[in-house]
């Protein structure tokens, strides 16, 4: 960090000022003049936190996608399908057993197995053939979408969280001051806080696993040079299958999360495939921190857009993508070449 500050003193200054302004916006009681210009603080704070939690959901989906791409160069366009399948499996698991938490391991395992099947039956047969993989996975996603429509119906499915998770909680963020001097605190849905914390924990765990463990080392080595890794005697096919299963399982978990605070329905597969594509393009293909940064940016853009300029909210996401592609085509945290 010190090195960066020495190399780019102006940028460091700008970033520091932005952080200070942001912290002030979050913690201070806004003066009336500011409220007149950009609206109530409650709206701003909610948009900020909603953007971050939505980013958490996008991160869950996109990290699997980017992991699979980074290691195996597999463009898995059936990733959205895995998300949707996870949602359906989780919904039925929670319904049958009555335990919401049980939906997560069940979705992870079932969708993970689907991932293994995809890797063994499809990708292994066409290693290194990008175009074929792309076309075949598009085909699979269309077929699966129809099969799921047939099996699970076209209704909107909403996974109900247990009662201790529903409803709001009062946070310690002040949104306004009443005339009598009382402070008004922000109320925020518990379920969104839990989801965000879970995404952070998972992200940190993944980063640790990749950077501090032997398996992580193998995966990173595989990302850099697959052929050399297999030449050293690592059983690379097993690593591939494992990573694919894990990435798919993450998409399955994301499906349960998405079904809990949004809803699951036909068509969601395409939406999340698109979202994860945008996220990894912005963040950088194959990079976990990149996926986190991209997911955060896209989530914030969607939420701030929806409140402050609703007409152009949809464009904003793609604008970010275009700007990144124009100035840093390898993605914000991607490695060039």
């Amino acid at each position: 960090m010190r090195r960066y500050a020495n190399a780019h003193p102006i940028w460091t200054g700008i970033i520091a000022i932005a952080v200070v302004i942001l912290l002030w916006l979050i913690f201070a009681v806004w003066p009336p003049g500011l409220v007149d210009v950009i609206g109530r603080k409650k709206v701003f704070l909610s948009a900020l936190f909603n953007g971050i939690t939505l980013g958490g959901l996008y991160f869950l989906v996109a990290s699997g996608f980017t992991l699979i791409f980074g290691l195996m160069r597999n463009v898995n366009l059936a990733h959205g399908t895995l998300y949707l399948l996870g949602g359906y499996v989780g919904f039925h698991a929670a319904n049958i057993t009555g335990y919401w938490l049980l939906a997560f391991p069940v979705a992870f395992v079932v969708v993970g197995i689907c991932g293994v099947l995809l890797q063994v039956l499809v990708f292994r047969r066409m290693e290194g053939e990008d175009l074929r993989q792309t076309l075949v996975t598009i085909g699979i996603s269309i077929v699966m979408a129809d099969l799921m429509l047939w099996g699970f119906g076209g209704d909107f499915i909403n996974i109900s969280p247990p009662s201790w998770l529903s409803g709001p909680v009062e946070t310690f963020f002040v949104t306004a001051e009443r005339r009598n001097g009382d402070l008004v605190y922000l109320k925020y849905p518990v379920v969104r806080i839990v989801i965000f914390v879970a995404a952070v924990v998972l992200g940190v765990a993944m980063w640790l696993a990749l950077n501090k463990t032997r398996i992580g080392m193998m995966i990173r080595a595989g990302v850099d040079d697959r052929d050399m890794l297999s030449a050293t005697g690592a059983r690379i096919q097993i690593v591939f299958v494992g990573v694919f299963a894990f990435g798919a399982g993450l998409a399955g978990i994301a499906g349960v999360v998405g079904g809990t605070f949004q809803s699951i329905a036909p068509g969601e597969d395409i939406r999340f495939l698109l979202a994860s594509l945008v996220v990894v393009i912005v963040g950088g293909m194959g990079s976990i921190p990149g996926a986190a940064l991209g997911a955060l940016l896209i989530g914030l853009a969607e939420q701030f857009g929806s409140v402050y300029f609703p007409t152009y909210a949809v464009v904003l996401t793609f604008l970010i993508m275009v700007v990144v592609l124009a100035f840093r085509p390898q993605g914000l945290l991607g490695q060039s070449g």
Partner: protein
Amino acid sequence: MKRALMGSLSAIALTAMTTGVMADGHSGPIKIGVLATLEGTYTVLGEDGVRGLNTALIGAGNKAGGREIELIIQSTDTSPDSALRGARKLVEQDGVEIVIGPLSGSEGIAIRDYSKTAPGVTFINGASGAMETTYVTPSDNFFRFNTDGAQWSVGLGDYVFNEKGWETVATVGEDYSFVYTQIFGFAKDFCEAGGEITERLWVPLGTKDFGSIIAALPDDVDAIYLGLGGGDAVNFLNQYQQAGGDANLIGGTIMVDGTVLSSEGNAKQALIGTPSSGPQADTWDNENWQTFVKSYQDAFPPDQRFPSPSLLATTYYNATSAMLQCMDDVGGDLTDGQANFRNCLTNLELEAPTGTITLDENRQAVASNFVSEVVELEDGTLANAMISKVDNVSQTLGLEKAAFDAMGLPSRENPECKTSY
């Protein structure tokens, strides 16, 4: 050998084509195309629309004017271009003679324009409810037997102001023509009664995350008007409950329709007691209505339908009934550019389950409208209980044409909230 085979195959194809052409307009099976939203946010709505259509066809033994009906269902996704693509495919590739649909507001505007380029085909609207579809540059071969979004709002503003005592309202709606039309009708009623609309928020159709919009809802209003539908409505309610929202709600027509009231999960419970309005009320004790509900229930097993038909089922049913009656009237004869058939549709007095429907000079329905409130029935399902009924609601909402035109067309900000128009 191969060439000979190809030759005979093309010969067969040619003969098949010519016989197909010969059958047009006289006798033999009639091809009817259907446009319904079977993808995207409004999937559930489209499915129930098709159920309504099939209820009518089952009642008629799948025959229209003595001719067997060959149904071609084309899926759309609420976007105008998907409807246009679907209609082109039905007309130009499948050669249908009648199209029933589309379902969503902006699709309707696109199909009205397309119908002008296909004068040989008759279009009967399915459920789309944007005002412009029939009010601005109407098309000669586009008929709408359902009232539009503004007509669906008649009676609601007056009810919430005078009976509920709600004087200030903020609105949240999907950002497209149908919801503009709904709020147009609501605003006219509500503001004339003396109410005030303080803020209008818009979200894109297909929004999933309403977190920030919910936070942006004003706290100092008496009620919030929700102009959402399908998946958007379910998502909104779910997140509204998670955020601990407890404001009074007013429902747009498809916000409190069977499609939302029958959704999985408990988000819909937030709607109990919500007043709303539309072209039907689920608990109406009218004999025709009850007969229709019964035939809808009989046509499909309980797990493949709603407890009672949604308004999409009803409007598609009405459109199909009008088509069937007029086909019988002309004995299945669609020659002479379908002149007799269209003449019959124009002058038809349709005895629909929701009351008598007639068409005005723009081929737009004039019909009854219902004010209702969401209640929980004994079996635990939710339904719209009838409060009151307004008869003969015209597209100009009872105003003179000049006064109505002065209000302008529905848009995000139009009409202004005034006490007289």
